[in-house]
């Protein structure tokens, strides 16, 4: 019962200030904090959406979750890939290759490109690839055939049924490299949703790639997992299963390290910058509460004379901060959630700028709670600091001189 009137008093003070001053300092503080919470939630959810879409989608078609890079003369790599595919959590293991080439179309246009050699049954074995590699025309190439990324096909003027020439270099040493020009029939045009990939990728049959286009070191085994985020800690079990403790594996994070570090840095900088809003509003709350203490000196003196202590009254003003912080956290979180939901439909972010069809927003519970707590802490700590003024009120003096 004794704590209740203090909370009641704090609540009344907040309401009263709103009633007497309209959009006064309390409302400004509340709106400032709510704006901070909203902005942080919206910005971080877009960043998360971007990052997770990248992980979900780009990694599925591009770097895969893990790659095992066998040594050039590995004799029993197929056998090893079978062993790897039996490790719990592994969805598929595909032998693939990647090599650089020059593509020339019938129309005489030339482009640099990356030839990716895929086995004929890649789409059956790898459901992630099957989902994210969208065929606009045709399908996976057999021997003597290739498929082109949609942007590359457009720039070359190539189409299914036409042919392209791929140039590969081979030779015992760099000075003795000889170009070989090989002609392939275009049988498919695909899209990945990423302009960079669609403008640079050629998919060839793995058998052709291994013989004519890729060197021995361009081969690798692409491993897909049930949970891509587990890639790092699965390295050891995969190496054990392969029977080669020294086997070289790389995770999708290794392949995209710079990108993810940039995202992380951007996220941290954004949190810091928007978080400054909490500091500014916290200072506003602190000074507003100091003024409120002065305005309520009479009340405080009376309450002490009536039977409470200044130390307990301090909580009235700290509670005011807590109430403002709580209201702002709730308001900002719901508004941020609304903005996040509407980010794609409102077109706030250009999909062209991100090279993906749309920018989905994803809120992570831990981050949302963290932001709300930062908001609460900012308001409550500021109010608590300011409420130290209560201890300086001399009830006798105030009651005597009113």
């Amino acid at each position, binding site marked *: *019962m004794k704590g209740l009137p203090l909370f009641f008093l704090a609540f009344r*003070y907040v309401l009263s200030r709103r009633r007497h001053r309209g959009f006064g300092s309390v409302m400004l503080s509340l709106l400032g904090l709510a704006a901070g919470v909203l902005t942080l939630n919206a910005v971080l959810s877009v960043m998360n959406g971007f990052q997770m879409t990248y992980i979900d989608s780009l990694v599925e078609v591009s770097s895969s979750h893990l790659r095992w890079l066998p040594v050039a003369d590995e004799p029993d790599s197929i056998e090893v890939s079978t062993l790897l595919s039996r490790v719990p959590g592994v969805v598929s293991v595909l032998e693939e290759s990647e090599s650089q080439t020059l593509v020339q179309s019938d129309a005489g246009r030339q482009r640099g490109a990356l030839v990716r050699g895929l086995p004929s049954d890649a789409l059956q074995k790898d459901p992630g690839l099957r989902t994210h590699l969208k065929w606009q025309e045709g399908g996976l190439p057999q021997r003597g055939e290739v498929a082109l990324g949609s942007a590359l096909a457009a720039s070359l003027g190539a189409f299914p049924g036409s042919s392209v020439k791929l140039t590969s270099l081979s030779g015992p040493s760099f000075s003795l490299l000889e170009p070989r020009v090989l002609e392939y029939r275009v049988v498919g045009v695909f899209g990945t949703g990423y302009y960079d990939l669609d403008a640079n990728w050629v998919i060839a049959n793995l058998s052709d790639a291994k013989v004519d286009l890729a060197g021995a070191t361009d081969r690798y085994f692409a491993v897909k997992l049930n949970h891509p985020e587990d890639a790092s800690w699965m390295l050891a079990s995969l190496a054990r299963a392969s029977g080669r403790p020294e086997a070289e594996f790389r995770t999708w994070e290794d392949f995209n390290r710079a990108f993810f570090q940039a995202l992380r840095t951007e996220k941290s900088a954004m949190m810091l910058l928007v978080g400054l809003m909490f500091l500014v509003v916290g200072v506003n709350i602190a000074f507003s509460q100091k003024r409120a203490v002065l305005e309520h000196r009479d009340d405080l003196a*009376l309450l002490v*004379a009536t039977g409470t202590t200044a130390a307990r009254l301090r909580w009235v003003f700290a509670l005011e901060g807590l109430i403002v912080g709580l209201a702002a956290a709730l308001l900002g979180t719901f508004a941020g959630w609304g903005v996040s939901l509407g980010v794609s439909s409102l077109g706030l972010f250009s999909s062209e700028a991100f090279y993906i069809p749309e920018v989905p927003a994803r809120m992570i519970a831990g981050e949302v709670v963290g932001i709300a707590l930062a908001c609460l802490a900012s308001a409550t700590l500021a109010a608590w600091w300011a409420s130290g003024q209560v201890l300086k009120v001399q*009830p006798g003096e105030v009651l005597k001189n009113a």
Partner: protein
Amino acid sequence: MSDVILEFRQVGRVFTETAEPVTLFQGLDWSLNRGDSVAIMGESGTGKSTLLHLAAALDQPTSGSVWLEGQEISRMGEKALSPLRTRSVGLVFQFHFLLKEFSVLENVLLPSWLAGTPKKAATERALALLERVGLSHRLGHFPGQLSGGERQRAALARALINDPPLLLADEPTGNLDEKNAELVQNLLLELSADAKKTLLLVTHDRSFAARAGYCLHLRGGQLVRP
């Protein structure tokens, strides 16, 4: 139970905050018996309000001690004083000090909340007191909606809500017109007499003082009979 409810033993109070130290009391010995009603008069600046504040432990003596209901309140910490004030002392000031954010009923109930009195009992008592001071039609009104006399009557009800044995009133009618002053005087004296309260009243009003059980003058830091 002792007959003495309030006792000043060799109380001294010197204000040193000013350029020249001001001595209000030095070696003041005085006691107030339970159930007495006493009016303190004196010129401005003689220390009447300070005497009252010492009695409520809102001020501390620079020497000597103040005892309330057998406990030395002048050496008590805030934590121990707080329940004592709630339980033993009712205060009425020249200014009403009603909390403007609270209704009349809530203002009257406030000390009972702080005392932890059960809600039902506290509300019943508050309603009875407000009926007695003629404010039963103003329960939900805020202080800003009341006249000066009404505010002071609400403050009187608030002072009595916890049924304290000692009522301290510091110029309770000082801000009121003649009619309202008389109304408040009547209520204060009647309520304290009916409930057998000890009343320590500070006033400049001779006629009001004359209605108390006895009157003392504060002169040269001592309480003397007129």
